C-alpha cells in the first residue's frame, strides 16, 4: 500500500491487515506511555480544506502517538483563501518534505488527483473527499463492528472477518462518503449490507451496489440487523428540497425512542447503534438512542485513533522502494480469505 484513497479498491487481505494492526495499536492506547517510536523523524501534514473536528484531531493524535511530526493546515487562514491551487499547495508541502499528506477536500477525487499527479512523493491518505469516500471512517466502523461481533461470538477479534453480520445503514446516503466507504469495506469483509433511506436521498445507480435497498426504515429493521448505522443529515450539502420537513424526516427515518424500544421487543439484544458523528440529536437519532448502552458512538471515536495509527504505520514504515506486501517475512497467519478468490491476486 502506497496510498489509502478508497475502500473500493482495498483488498480483503489489506483490510484485515489494517484492522489487525489497529488491534495492536489499541493496546498501546491503554498503556501508561501511549507512544511508539516507529515514525520518529517523519512528517505528517493534515491538509484540511473542509471543516472537521474529530477526524483531524484523531489523525493528529495517531501521528503523535507514532512519534511523527505533525503540521496542521486548514484552508481558512491559509493562502488557499488567496486563491492558491491544490497543485501549488501540494508542491509547497513537498518542498517541506512531508512524508504523508492526510487530505480532506470538498471535491470528490481530490486525494486521488494528489496521489496520481506526481506533484508529491508523499503517501496520501483520504480523510474524506466530497461525496466520494472516507476510508478511515469505514475502517474504524469495521473495527468497532468486528470487536462487537467477536465479543458476542466469544472469539479474539484479530483475524476475524464480518462474515454473517448484517449491517443496516440509514439516512442520507446520497451525500454520505461514510456510507459509500462502508458499503465497499463491509462487503469486502464479508458482511451483508442493507441501505434504507428516502428515494430522494439515495444516489442514482444504488441498485448496482452490493447491498439491499429499503424505502421504509421499519421494513429494514424487520430484517433483524446486527448493527444500525445512522448517517448525519448533511444540511450543508443540500441545495434542493429532498424531504418536506425535518419533522417528517425524523418521524420516518430517525432512530427515535420508539424504534429503540422496538429493538428490545424484537429481542435484538446484541444490535448496536452507530453514528459517525457529529450527531443531529433529535433529527436522525434521538438522545435516548445516542446515549443508550447500544450506542457505539464514543467507541467509534476511540477506535478512530487506533485505526489511523495503523494506516499511517503501514503506509510509512516500510521500505519506500518496496511496495510488495507479499514479501513480508512474517506473513499474515491464518488468512481467512486465503481460499476465496476475492482480494487475492493470482
Amino acid at each position, binding site marked *: *500500500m502506497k496510498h489509502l484513497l478508497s475502500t473500493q479498491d482495498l483488498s480483503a487481505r489489506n483490510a484485515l*491487515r489494517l484492522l*489487525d*494492526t489497529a*488491534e*495492536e*495499536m489499541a*493496546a498501546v492506547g491503554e*498503556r501508561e*506511555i501511549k*507512544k*511508539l*517510536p*516507529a515514525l520518529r523523524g517523519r512528517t505528517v501534514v493534515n491538509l484540511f480544506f473542509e471543516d472537521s473536528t474529530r477526524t483531524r484531531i484523531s489523525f493528529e493524535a495517531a501521528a503523535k502517538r*507514532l512519534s511523527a511530526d505533525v503540521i496542521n493546515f486548514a484552508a481558512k487562514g491559509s493562502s488557499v483563501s488567496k486563491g492558491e491551487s491544490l497543485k501549488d499547495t501540494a508542491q509547497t508541502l513537498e518542498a517541506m518534505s512531508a512524508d504523508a499528506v492526510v487530505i480532506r477536500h470538498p471535491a470528490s477525487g481530490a486525494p486521488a488527483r494528489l496521489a496520481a499527479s506526481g506533484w508529491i512523493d508523499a503517501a496520501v491518505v483520504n480523510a474524506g473527499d466530497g461525496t466520494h469516500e472516507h476510508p478511515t471512517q469505514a475502517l474504524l466502523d469495521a473495527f468497532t463492528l468486528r470487536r462487537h461481533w467477536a465479543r458476542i461470538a466469544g472469539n479474539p477479534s*484479530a483475524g476475524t472477518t464480518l462474515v454473517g453480520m448484517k449491517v443496516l445503514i440509514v439516512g442520507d446516503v446520497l451525500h454520505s462518503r461514510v456510507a459509500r466507504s462502508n458499503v465497499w469495506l463491509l462487503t469486502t469483509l464479508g458482511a451483508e449490507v442493507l441501505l434504507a433511506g428516502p428515494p430522494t436521498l439515495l444516489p442514482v445507480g444504488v441498485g448496482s451496489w452490493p447491498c439491499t435497498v429499503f424505502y421504509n426504515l421499519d421494513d429494514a429493521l424487520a430484517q433483524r440487523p446486527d448493527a444500525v448505522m445512522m448517517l448525519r443529515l448533511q444540511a450543508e450539502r443540500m441545495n434542493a428540497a429532498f424531504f418536506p420537513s425535518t419533522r417528517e424526516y425524523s418521524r420516518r427515518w430517525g432512530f427515535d425512542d420508539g424504534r429503540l424500544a422496538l429493538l428490545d421487543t424484537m429481542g435484538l439484544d446484541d444490535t448496536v447503534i452507530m453514528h459517525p458523528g457529529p450527531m443531529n440529536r433529535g433529527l436522525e437519532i434521538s438522545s435516548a438512542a445516542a446515549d443508550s448502552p447500544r450506542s457505539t458512538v464514543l467507541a467509534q471515536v476511540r477506535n478512530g485513533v487506533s485505526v489511523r495509527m495503523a494506516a499511517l*504505520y*503501514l503506509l510509512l*514504515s*516500510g*521500505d*519506500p522502494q*518496496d511496495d*510488495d*506486501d507479499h*514479501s*513480508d*517475512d*512474517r506473513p*499474515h497467519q491464518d488468512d481467512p480469505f486465503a481460499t476465496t478468490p476475492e482480494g487475492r491476486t493470482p
Partner: protein
Amino acid sequence: MTVPASESGIHKRVVLAEADIDRALTRIAHEILEANKGPRDLVLLGIPRRGFPLAQRLAQKIAAVDPSVDPDLITGQLDVTMYRDDLRRHPTRSPLATQLPPSGIDDKVVVLVDDVLYSGRTIRAGLDALADLGRPRAVRLAVLVDRGHRELPIRADHVGKNLPTSSLERVRVHLAEIDLIGGSAVDEVVIEDRT
C-alpha cells in the same frame, strides 16, 4: 549430520535435534532459577514469534522444579516491531501482540527469551519496548542459540548453544508450536549454507 537439501545450492545441517533443544532449555531453566535464587519476581517475556513458545517451555520447566509457580502467570510476549531500527529497510512489518502477565513488570526480574541472538538489534529494540511498559528491577537475556556477529554491546546471560557461524549462513529454529515441516511438527535448529 549433513543432509543434502532438495533445493539446489542450499545445504542444511541439523545442529540441535529435539532432545538437544529440550536438554538446553532444562539447563537454562535451572540457570535462571539459580541466578535469581528461586522463582521470586520472575517474569519470562518471549520475543515473537519463536521466543514466546520458548518462554512458555522455560516456564513449564521452572514450574516442574518449583511447584509453587504457575507457568501462565509468569509468561508473556513482548513485540518489538515498532521499536526496530530497520523498519525503513524492510517491507512493512505487521506488529504482533504484546501480552504481559497480570502482575506487570514493575520491580520484576524480566528474562527476555529469543531463539537466535545475532546482531543484538532485536534485543536493543526489546529493551526500548520494556522501558515504555514499566520499570523492571533487572533484565536478563536467555537465548537458545548465540551465533555471534554482534553489532551492539549486548550479551546473553543464558545460552542454549554457542554456534560459531559465517554471516553467509542462516540459522533457523523450528519449534513444534509454530512450524510444520512436511506436515509434521518438528523441533530442530538448522544451519542453511548458501554456497
